[in-house]
């Protein structure tokens, strides 16, 4: 640029640079908050990128390991949950269960679809905050009944109808937080089941009303066992925050099964800031939890179910290689039955969103008819067809996990082990406590010999 150019066009200007700290999405949220005075509420789990199962790879067999034939040789998938104290443990054909989702947050037809799909695949489904519906019980061969702080719909008859009881202490999307089912989803039926007026916002408390701490929890579990004649496996579900201590205390309190939910695990509705900024990634939870079980001498005796971001058979296999006995899926199951389907794109656009990003489940306007109580929208979901899709998806995940296990030389998914894995990043290596790819080392490990 010459002096003449400057004289004619003015001095050169710097290229506009967007702030990494005050990015356009951040600024848009600031403007939205300033305009409304209300924090953003949404459904789902953490959307931010966190270390996850994608950051792990299986090593597979070669000379040092002997693989099994991929299609011919047996690779068992069965799992029995509740072997510690319960008279009637749950036996599942596959180690992939359906996580707790409430009638209220989901339509009755969606709950029916989840029950159908899970039953056809030989696994369990789970109630949620709001009680047990007859259609859910009727279509679920194995049904886990959640015992939640709100106790909406809780009664001893349903407790005895359940195949297992899950005491929910917390969940990965909002550990330490309660919930709110907004009034627009409180239909007559939902209101009746929860014993509250129609159309009002219904809060779900963040802690149980009649026990605090692990010593009380032990007595609460005793009460539930006495009411159900010690027949039902009792799970304790915790959000991933301090997994070593929480799992150890759940075991001390008498749990048969511990369910551990990482921050990618979904919720029907809570504050976005809560979902994105509280809790641990699922990957970071598993090894401390397994360590707690091993230190107490109950690994495999007290089963560990891991949830939060399980999407594929590879995720299933990786969670199990790290020590889980089974996994649980919620968001993935919803996608399988039709949530965020591109065929509703025009309607997502009308709601100011797009396929894959729709998460305003609390508003009750779900075009797919899943997270709604609207009578017309609900009809869009065929529970038989949706159940079939879920069954297919569960079958595919199981086949994928078996394929990987065989390639690693295992005849049972539960024989997968950390030695089958390596990590692509330092963070994943540290969290999963498996070697960084091409090395024998992970952060925190002493020594580096082969």
């Amino acid at each position, binding site marked *: 640029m010459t002096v003449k150019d400057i004289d004619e066009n003015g001095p050169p200007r710097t290229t506009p640079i967007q702030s990494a700290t005050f990015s356009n999405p951040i600024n848009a949220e600031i403007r939205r908050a300033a305009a409304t005075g209300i924090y953003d509420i949404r459904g789902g789990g953490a959307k931010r990128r966190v270390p996850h199962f994608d950051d792990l790879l299986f090593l597979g067999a070669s000379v040092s390991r002997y693989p099994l034939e991929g299609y011919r040789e047996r690779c068992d998938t069965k799992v029995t949950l509740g072997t510690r104290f319960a008279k009637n443990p749950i036996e599942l054909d596959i180690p992939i269960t359906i996580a707790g989702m409430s009638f209220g947050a989901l339509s009755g037809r969606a709950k029916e679809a989840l029950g159908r799909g899970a039953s056809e695949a030989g696994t369990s489904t789970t109630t949620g905050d709001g009680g047990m519906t007859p259609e859910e019980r009727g279509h679920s061969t194995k049904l886990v009944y959640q015992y939640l702080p709100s106790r909406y719909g809780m009664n*001893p008859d349903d407790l005895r109808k359940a195949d297992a009881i899950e005491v929910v202490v917390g969940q990965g999307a909002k550990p330490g937080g309660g919930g709110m089912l907004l009034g627009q989803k409180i239909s007559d039926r939902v209101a009746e089941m929860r014993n*509250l007026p129609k159309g009002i916002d219904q*809060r779900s408390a963040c802690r149980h009303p009649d026990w605090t701490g692990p010593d009380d929890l032990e007595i609460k579990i005793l009460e539930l066992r006495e009411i*159900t004649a010690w027949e039902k496996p009792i799970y304790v579900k915790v959000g991933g925050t301090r997994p070593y201590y929480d799992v150890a205390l759940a075991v001390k309190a008498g749990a048969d099964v511990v369910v551990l939910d990482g921050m990618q695990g979904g919720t029907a509705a809570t504050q976005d800031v809560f979902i994105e900024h509280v809790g641990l990634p699922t990957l970071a939870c598993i090894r401390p939890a397994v360590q707690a079980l091993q230190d107490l001498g109950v690994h495999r005796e007290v089963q560990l179910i891991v949830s939060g971001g399980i999407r594929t058979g590879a995720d299933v296999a990786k969670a199990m290689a790290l020590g889980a006995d089974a996994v649980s899926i919620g968001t993935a199951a919803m996608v399988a039955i039709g949530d965020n389907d591109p065929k509703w794109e025009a309607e997502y656009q009308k709601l100011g969103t797009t396929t894959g990003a729709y998460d305003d489940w609390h508003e009750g306007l779900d075009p797919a008819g899943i997270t709604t109580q609207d009578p017309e929208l609900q009809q869009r979901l065929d529970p038989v067809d949706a159940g079939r899709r879920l069954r297919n998806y569960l079958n595919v995940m199981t086949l994928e996990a078996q394929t990987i296990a065989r390639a690693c030389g295992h005849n049972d998914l539960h024989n997968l082990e950390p030695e089958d894995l390596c990590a692509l990043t330092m963070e994943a290596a540290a969290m999963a406590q498996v070697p960084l790819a091409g090395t024998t080392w992970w952060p925190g490990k002493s020594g580096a010999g082969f």
Partner: protein
Amino acid sequence: MQTYDLEADGLRGLNAALHAQTSETNQTQWEIVNPRGSHAIAVGLDAPIEVNVKGSTGYYCGGMNKQATVHVHGSAGPGVAENMMSGTVVIDGDASQYAGATGNGGTLVIKGNASSRCGISMKGIDIVVHGNVGHMSAFMGQSGNMVVCGDAGEALGDSIYEARLFVRGSVKSLGADCVEKEMRPEHIELLRDLLDRGGCDAKPEEFKRYGSARQLYNFKVDNAY
């Protein structure tokens, strides 16, 4: 009269024997001796029987009760009659925290005092306390009635929904969205019946009624704390 020695014969045997009773049972009178503060006594009952516990109990006595009458001839630990569906639970002495928590129905009578969070998340139960109740009683109370013949502690009825509270003595403070309400004739009649069922000779006219201002029923930013 069936007599069961809890210390000698154990909790599982007791609850199994009580659960075995049906609507047609002729073993309608039960006496439990040596409870010694044990937890989960007479939980999950579902028959028209009367169970007299001769002493004090630990946590969750009478939990999830249906139909039965459970009478504690002593004091009760935390969570007595939690999630009761129907029937009656009577405590001769005092009750610890969370008495009648999440109860859906039936009547809980506490002849002494009740500690904090009495009637927390109550969903239809009727609770009659002859003495005082502690702080945060009837927290998030959804429905049902609570009668307090003595005084109420801090934050009575915090975040209350449609439960009705009647207090004869002082209220140290009201919780969020809980207000004093007019005592109309129908409330006097309701209270008279509750006092009668609770074996209490207080006069309904001596009570004040409290309930929800219904200002927290839908989320508004100005209601956030």
